[in-house]
């Protein structure tokens, strides 16, 4: 089982080569950092003050995460998960996958594992992007000093971990929808709808019941002034619970599907 899982994972990993989903991860990882670099180069005269700030790294971190947490990460997860899963429908390949000597459990979890690892890949690339977007203006603009405060590694790693946990329910639900529906528009449409719902529900007392809100709540939690409601429960625990519950439902739906290609 373990060995066949590894082989299946390798096979699934190869499938995403040159796919739109893998391109999305790379573009998504460097999109915001690129915008930050361009913006800083345009407003280069304000850079000496920004870089002299004793809390530079924390401010830079929050600036980098702002658009990602609210917009890019949820949308990226919706698109990448749907695209990866839909590769089989698009290429008429489910029947090929289901006639390989792999158990349905192996197929289900190896595909899910590829999506989760792709998300980790996004986090790594985005973090590299965050660092580069801080360093490039310093290297290019004369008179800009290197930030004096040390990089708060531990805080950044914790924040990365929490953001990652918070996007797990989105992965699980998008995976379920993409496995269930042949039409690509169904998981995409449902994903967008849920994200819009999540944005609207941020001020609602029970907004935390919508699993697509967690990434945004996590970002807004550190905002000094925010219109968003403060979740009454630990959203990270809820995210893990949602992920497990949705994955179990998704697995049952998958293995009991009458037509497998």
């Amino acid at each position: 089982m373990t060995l066949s899982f590894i082989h299946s994972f390798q096979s699934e990993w190869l499938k995403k080569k040159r796919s739109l989903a893998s391109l999305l991860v790379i573009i998504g990882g460097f999109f915001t950092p690129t915008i930050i670099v361009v913006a800083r180069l345009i407003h280069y005269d304000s850079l000496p003050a920004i870089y002299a700030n004793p809390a530079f790294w924390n401010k830079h971190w929050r600036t980098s995460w702002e658009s990602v947490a609210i917009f890019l990460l949820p949308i990226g997860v919706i698109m990448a998960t749907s695209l990866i899963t839909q590769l089989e429908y698009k290429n008429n390949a489910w029947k090929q996958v289901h006639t390989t000597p792999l158990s349905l459990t192996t197929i289900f979890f190896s595909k899910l594992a590829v999506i989760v690892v792709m998300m980790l890949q996004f986090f790594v690339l985005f973090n590299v992007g965050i660092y580069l977007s801080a360093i490039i203006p310093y290297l290019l603009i004369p008179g800009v000093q290197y930030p004096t405060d040390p990089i708060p590694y531990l805080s950044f790693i914790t924040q990365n971990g929490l953001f990652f946990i918070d996007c797990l329910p989105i992965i699980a639900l998008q995976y379920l929808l993409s496995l269930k529906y042949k039409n690509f528009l169904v998981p995409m449409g449902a994903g967008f709808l849920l994200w819009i719902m999540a944005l609207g529900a941020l001020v609602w007392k029970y907004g935390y019941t919508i699993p697509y809100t967690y990434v945004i709540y996590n970002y807004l939690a550190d905002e000094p002034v925010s219109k968003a409601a403060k979740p009454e429960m630990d959203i990270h625990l809820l995210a893990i619970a949602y992920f497990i519950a949705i994955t179990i439902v998704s697995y049952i739906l998958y293995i009991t599907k009458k037509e497998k290609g």
Partner: protein
Amino acid sequence: MIDTNAFSLETNNLTHHFSKGEKVLDSINLKVSQGSIYGFLGPNGAGKTTTLRLVLGLLTKQQGAISFFGLPFQENRVSILKRVGSLIESPSIYGHLTATENLSLLQKIYQCPKERIQQVLTLVGLQLTGNKKASQFSLGMKQRLSIAIALLHNPSLLILDEPTNGLDPNGMVEVRELLKKLNREQGITIIISSHLLAEIERLVSHVGIINKGKLVFQGTLEELNEKQHQSSCVVFDTNNESKTLEIIREHQLKGVIRNGKIVVPLISKDHMAKLNVQLVQSGVSVYEMSVIKNDLETIFMELINN
């Protein structure tokens, strides 16, 4: 434990309904002997693809039993699929990958030697496709790549659902020759479905004919040929049907009147001559005496039309 004497594929009373309750398969009992090339024939919509999807587990089995190499499929799915290569309907190919990459991702699952990739690509004539993405392939090339995929892990049994779809006549001949070679040299059992008997009659050793969800014939090609011989007949057109029938019965032959003519099973030329002499001597005018030899296609059509 694999039973080496067992059928490569056997189904017992395989029955399937789609949601509306209509039976699409009715008690199908396929018996595919090891080392055979089994032609699974039937018109479009007869139930060929449904049968093949069921035996491969792509459709959930409702009634009946399926076993490969003497082992029940349900309980031995993974070990059985290691020995089975398949191509069901249209090609399953990742368009954004090259032919080699398409095979590589399956090589990782089957854990067969990497050299097999080039071997099977050469076998189907796709060794020079290089970095060309599969989405840029013609339908024929995609079909060849699908055959290469089915062959990658050296299966004992190949299940091919209309594998020559989209191939030009030359390509069809090439695929037929390739399958013959694989069967002859490597002993691979092959199940090949088609709606055209003429397309596979020079390839197969066994035939199963399905129509409206029922298996109407199953046997060797010789048995089908025998059926062809049996259905060949001699037609007599005379001015006196009753007298003609009387004389025919004197010769221990069974004659029937069809469209005003008398039809008897095929007899030898000498026998025909004797009958003719006797008819004339009895005052019967013989307008026509002809042999009708049915070809396999006619038998096939008769089987599916009955």
